[in-house]
């Protein structure tokens, strides 16, 4: 009945209700978590999307927005409720070259926007490694970052305005295309709301002129520790690189085994990929300073990419590193902690010690410039003993990051995966404030229920009326709630 009504809105080909067809929507980029949706609906136009949300509101049905499903925190999973897929809304509505802005539908893929604006000498700065697949809507919801966000800022700094459908079906404009807005600017509240505040339907982004000069440097080291100290030294020098990325030996070698082999030295224990951009004269000076810092800090060699083709290759290797790890073992788990940059050497040493203790293989590839760590562990979930060790190792790593004054997510969001850590870093007062803010956008808690803020902290949604699953008011408590334990996939 619900399916039929939705089919009237979007056409029968774009509503899925068979269990076997919904299977592929049961996970995102972190398939250790699976939740089977009840229904999936894919509106093809803005009007259809609004009609879908209004229908769901009238029926009081909870739903989960979904972009490309590349999220790494289980954010787009729908537990026996409706998935509203926005990937069909993929029009670039307008491009205003003079005023450097573009308005897009939420399903536009990040890289496609960049390809579209490149001929005009412009770029959309936030460049998550998943840029070839993830959507701008998903970027907004997760406040996505990327290597170049060190200098240019994250999604939040590049979104001017949004048209949002609230879960009630009401349409609101947040921010302003032309500058300051009268009254409260609620952009910051919506960006990073992980699908819990409604659907972003139209997004106006700021475009950045391509820098006059760009240099990409590859420094390689025989120890992780040296690379970590050099990272701190570069930041301390006052230079703000456009990007400053770290990859350890294990990561280097999986990338070199893949089709994205970038020519990284296989025998290195760490590399730093450093990009400098701006005016030619300044870049030349910075390049020399950075080169010196690297060599003084023990780099074996500092190579500068000769041309754009080589630059692209160096970056592709970095951006495809996570994907390349699939060749190590059948299952993969990744964390997203942010730590103060000065603690980098110490935390990397801890990660190493933990990996030895539990004999698991950690691959580190991360945004060193802003201290955003991504420890990845490849393992086999079919081996219960190994899974147990991986789980313990990850918890220990996260605890060390929190103890070092860090936070639990830099860019992947809380979603389902980090729910269990929320109470270890936020007080009850803060969590309550989050719930109240949510109440402003979604008083019925129907949009992406059960994510971000632990259920019991928020008197969350308790299941669809008549649903097979309706959740208890209290879930298991934080760290023992097995925050990052994947189910065998």
């Amino acid at each position, binding site marked *: 009945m619900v399916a039929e009504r939705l089919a009237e809105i979007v056409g029968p080909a774009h509503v899925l209700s068979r269990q076997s067809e919904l*299977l592929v929507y049961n996970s995102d980029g972190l398939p250790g978590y699976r939740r089977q949706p009840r229904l999936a609906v894919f509106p093809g136009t803005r009007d259809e999307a609004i009609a879908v949300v209004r229908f769901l509101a009238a029926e009081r049905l909870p739903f989960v927005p979904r972009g490309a499903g590349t999220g790494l925190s289980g954010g787009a999973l729908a537990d026996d409720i409706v998935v509203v897929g926005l*990937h069909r809304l993929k029009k670039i509505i307008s491009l205003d070259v003079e005023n450097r802005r573009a308005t897009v539908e939420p399903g536009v893929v990040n890289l496609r926007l960049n390809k579209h604006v490149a001929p005009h000498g412009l770029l959309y700065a936030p460049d998550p490694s998943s840029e*070839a697949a993830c959507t701008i809507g998903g970027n907004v919801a997760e406040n996505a970052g990327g290597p170049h966000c060190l200098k240019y800022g994250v999604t939040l700094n590049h979104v001017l305005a949004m048209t949002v459908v609230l879960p009630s079906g009401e349409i609101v404009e947040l921010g302003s295309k032309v500058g300051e807005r009268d009254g409260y600017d609620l952009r910051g509240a919506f960006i990073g709301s992980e699908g819990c505040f409604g659907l972003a339907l139209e997004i106006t982004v700021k475009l950045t002129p391509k820098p006059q000069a760009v240099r990409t440097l590859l420094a390689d080291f025989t120890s992780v520790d040296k690379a970590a100290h050099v990272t701190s030294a570069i930041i301390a020098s006052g230079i703000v690189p456009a990007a400053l990325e770290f990859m350890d030996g294990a990561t280097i070698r999986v990338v070199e085994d893949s089709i994205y082999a970038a020519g990284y030295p296989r025998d290195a224990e760490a590399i730093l990929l450093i990009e400098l951009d701006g005016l030619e004269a300044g870049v030349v000076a910075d390049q020399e300073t950075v080169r010196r810092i690297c060599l003084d800090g023990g780099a074996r060699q500092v190579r500068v990419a000769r041309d754009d083709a080589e630059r692209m290759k160096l970056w592709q290797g970095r951006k*495809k590193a*996570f994907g390349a790890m*699939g060749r190590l073992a059948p299952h993969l788990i990744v964390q997203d902690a942010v730590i103060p940059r000065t603690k980098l050497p110490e935390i990397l040493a801890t990660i190493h010690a933990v990996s030895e203790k539990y004999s698991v293989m950690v691959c580190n590839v991360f945004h060193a410039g802003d201290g955003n760590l991504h420890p990845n562990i490849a393992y086999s979930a*079919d081996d219960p003993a190994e899974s147990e060790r991986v789980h313990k190792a990850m918890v220990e790593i996260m605890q060390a990051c929190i103890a070092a004054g860090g936070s639990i997510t830099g860019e992947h969001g809380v979603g389902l995966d980090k729910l269990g850590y929320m109470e270890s870093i936020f007080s009850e007062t803060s969590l309550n404030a989050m719930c109240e803010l949510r109440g402003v956008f979604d008083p019925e808690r129907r949009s992406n229920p059960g994510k971000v803020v632990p259920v019991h902290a928020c008197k969350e949604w308790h299941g669809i009326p008549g649903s097979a699953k309706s959740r208890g008011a209290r879930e298991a408590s934080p760290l023992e709630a097995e925050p990052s334990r994947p189910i065998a996939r």
Partner: protein
Amino acid sequence: MPGCALPNTPLAGALPGINACVHCGFCLQSCPTYLNLEDENDSPRGRIFLMRSLLEGTVKPDDASVQLHIDQCLGCRACEPVCPSGVPYGQLLEATRATLYEYRPTPFIARLILFVFAREWLLRPAMFFSRALAATPIPTLLSGIKGRLGFAMAMLASTGRSIERSNYKPVTRGERGTVATLRGCVMEGLFSTTNRATERVLTVNGYSIVGAPGQKCCGALHAHAGHLEDARALARRNIVAFERSGATFIAVNAAGCGAIMKEYGHLLKDDPEWHQRAVNLSARVRDVSELLAAAGPREGGPLPVKVTYDAPCHLIHAQRVNEAPLSVLTAIPGLELVPLHDFDQCCGSAGIYNLIEPDTSDAVLAPKLANIRDTRASWVATGNPGCLMQIGAGLIRAEISARAIHPVDLLDASYAAFGQ
């Protein structure tokens, strides 16, 4: 995987390849069926997930929607070269189709085609009849009618539209070694002009042609449909024929055939008696453009035509041959090569897919035709019979004046203009 739901099936054997998928989604935007049908079930990541689910038992092999989404895959393998984890998608698809084959019939028309292609005594008259029909005005007359019959007629009509050229006699010093050519069922049946041109241009470029009697259909269509045993039987016959020829190289001018022949080693991996022979044979297989590019190719006479190039999926994605066909075209004096937008996207031909899944095939073809129209080229060069007919038929039906042609035919016309 604890407890495999389909033990001892080809799919179970493909588990390591399935496990390599990390679910990152980098393949989504490269997939023509995902872009057109806009459902993850019709994406590489989704299909791999379905394969995994079949093994886990969370979905059954007789499930209609799983069969549908596996059937709707073009097998274009555009998802492979973008995958950081190196998932061998083409092999997973074959294993899945071979496993599902047990549970449901292949569509009648596909079964008929595969049956004929595996049997020379049926294939010869079928090709003779097609050729005779193509020589009459009938296909052109019927090419406009709606539906698959009209499309099939347009396909036939397109085969008779190659470039005019005079005769010339190639001479060779044979310094580059001996070559046996795969004649190919469709190539020899409907594009015999291209086959002769292939022999001539290879000769001009220093290869000496030797025969390989006893060769058969390459088995690609059978393998793609999951009829692996038929494919293996054909492969063994070809291994014998080409071994006997003693040729240094085996030249293939049909990308789909070349791709499977380069993978005979994988096809026969579980056959201890044949595996090594298959690997050795695969190592000698080259697309014709690879052999020509290695030789230069030699420059011919002027051919003042405007040409655009469309890459066959089984050349660019499966064989990873990117540059060689372009070297062939740029070696032709006077030829103006204009870029084709999305030249690396599938045209929707995909073996016999266009006859079995016409709607998706048409949806994939439409942007291709529009892009070709935008180039204003008079020829679209592409090195695979399926693509030649699919694009050729599409152009006729959309009344676009460009014609589809094999790159080798253009090079041959250039040599003819030179008198060699």
